[in-house]
């Protein structure tokens, strides 16, 4: 009967639909039209195996430009700039280079607390609707511990097929 004892709470949990807590780093808004400005909210629900999060690094995928991180009290934000693979059109302005990585550091988010890291960016028309755009995120903790949410699902696979999927954003047609 011990097996039953272990399964019943599982059913109870499943039936009530517990979706709030998230060990993965995910995006709050997981759908956005191309050729629009998107506010990306990265939800960090856990540290690295019990350790506090001290650094969050977000890789900006190609086709995402005009990136502006939202300042965060207690954290230093760093913008790593670089050249894009091609020139993108930003409301008529050709854009060849910009922010390619955002790093929040200097803070300490305990494992048992929750926080959000926010940036705003423009999703260019070069991005294809009906595809998923991934923002690889590396979460660093003291003593060299890190969680890397950087797995990009292959064609035909979803985030659930991976242990540490990158947060994804479903692109839809321009409104």
């Amino acid at each position: 009967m011990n097996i039953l004892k272990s399964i019943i709470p599982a059913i109870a949990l499943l039936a009530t639909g517990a979706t709030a807590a998230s060990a993965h780093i995910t995006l709050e808004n997981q759908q956005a039209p191309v050729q629009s400005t998107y506010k990306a909210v990265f939800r960090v629900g856990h540290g690295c195996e019990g350790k506090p999060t001290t650094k969050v690094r977000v890789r900006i995928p190609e086709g995402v430009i005009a990136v502006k991180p939202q300042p965060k009290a207690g954290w230093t934000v760093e913008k790593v700039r670089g050249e894009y693979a091609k020139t993108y059109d930003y409301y008529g302005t050709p854009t060849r280079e910009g922010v390619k990585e955002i790093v929040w550091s200097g803070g300490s988010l305990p494992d048992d607390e929750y926080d959000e890291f926010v940036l705003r960016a423009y999703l260019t028309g070069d991005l294809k609707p009906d595809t998923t755009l991934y923002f690889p995120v590396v979460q660093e903790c003291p003593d060299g511990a890190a969680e890397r949410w950087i797995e990009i699902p292959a064609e035909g696979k979803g985030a659930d097929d991976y242990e540490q999927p990158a947060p994804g954003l479903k692109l839809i047609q321009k409104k």
Partner: protein
Amino acid sequence: MNGNGRTGAAGRRLMLLVLSVLCIAGAQLASMGHARAHASLVRVEPADGAVMAEAPKAFRLTFSEPTSPLVLKLIRPDGTGAVLDRFTLRDATLDIDAPADLGHGTYVLSWRIVSEDGHPVGGSAVFSIGAPGTSAALAPGDAADWQVRAAVWAAKVALYVGLFIGIGGVFFGRWIGDGTHRVALWSVFAGLAAVPLSVGFQGLDALGVPLADLASPVVWATGFSTSYGKTAFVALAALVLAAMAGVDRGAAGKGLSVTALVVAGLALAASGHASAAHPQWLTRPAVFLHAVGIAFWAGALVPLGAALASPVQGEGSAALRRFSRAIPVAVLPLVVAGVLLAAVQLRTPEALWTTAYGKVLLIKLGLLAALFLLAAVNRFRLTTPAARGDGRATARLRRSIYAELVLVLAIFAVAALWRFTPPPRALAEAAAAPASVHLHADKAMADVAIAPGRAGPVRASIAVMTGDFGPLDPAGVTLVLSNPAAGIEQIRRPATRDSEGVWQVEGLNLPVAGQWTVRVDILISDFELVKVEDNIAIRP
């Protein structure tokens, strides 16, 4: 029958529950989108890779959030798995009662839990009690404790004396001679005293702890859990049977003495280097025949010598005639089995002088040559005149038989040394070629070699390349092994880069043989991870 019926009903209820879980889980999956909550393991006790002196009383898994266990399994050193169903769940911590009978060896604690979102997460921790390894019969390390070794050796010699001189002597007294000689009976008692002690010594040796720890219960539990425990148990039964046969002069005594002889043979066939060798259908019966033959021969010496010295006219010569008729029947299988076992263990003739095992065998062969020479003289020169009643020949034969006895004891003393020398067969197996596999993806490849390629303590070397055989210097490499067939969830180990650019994982332990899934996670840069996966066959 009633019990089976209940199990069946419980099984059906369980099936229904599992099905309902699956249905709800399916519905949840469909509705939940991408926000997933995975509980990650924060801590496991005992820690992955831990080696401890004593068996843990409990296991503890601490997760990052509340969980419910689905399956908790413990895979034992012999590869059998047991479901752990006694546990308490406190928030995110799972306390699991450990089975009480954990002996020496390597275990895998494997879990599959469901976290808040109903997503099952699995993992494994490998830990060892005593020393890592799958077999308790492996040779002890270099840092030998001579006191413990001497004790193990002495107990082994005493066991031989009890089984061969004792049980063989009782058998002789019941079937060939006339009554039980007191030396045979005392040998049986010596064996009865030595066998339990030898279990404790075995435990000390297996755990690598000093003689002073003999009183510790874990030492005894460990001793019993090694393959020697079986031998000790069966040997004890044989000695008790022989003690009963020694005092019963009737038909029951005759029957008991035969049973004791057979059980003694089974005891020795139950463990040891020779019985562990393959093919077992050959080696185990060979050990049995060898042991029974020795008991018959060695056991006869004391009572035969005594009978020849007996003042009762004709008593000695009658026993001598019966013995000399029976002895070829015992010696022929003894010799054939011995030669066969030596061939299996040595593999090559050079091993005779190049390995410790071979040297022990050489000394034993020297003593055996002397013994057979004496035996031949006794049989072909002295037996016939002595059986006729020739006084001088009888006296010479008696002296010669006592000389044989001394040689036999020396052979026991030498053979007991084998306890400390792994046979060349085992050495060759230890040096077995590694198992290797090539893992391939577009962006990166990995060549994984696991050495030795068999279950037990191993090390893994991983060479990584780009997809077109170019050099690759990744930020990190992680080896992930699992064995779904054996119910072993992922065992993850980070690799470290050596000076030649090969990534190494030391201190790995593969507790069971079979098809393992090997995956290498190559962190090419901070934001780029490539996973390559395939199967690898691990030999037993």
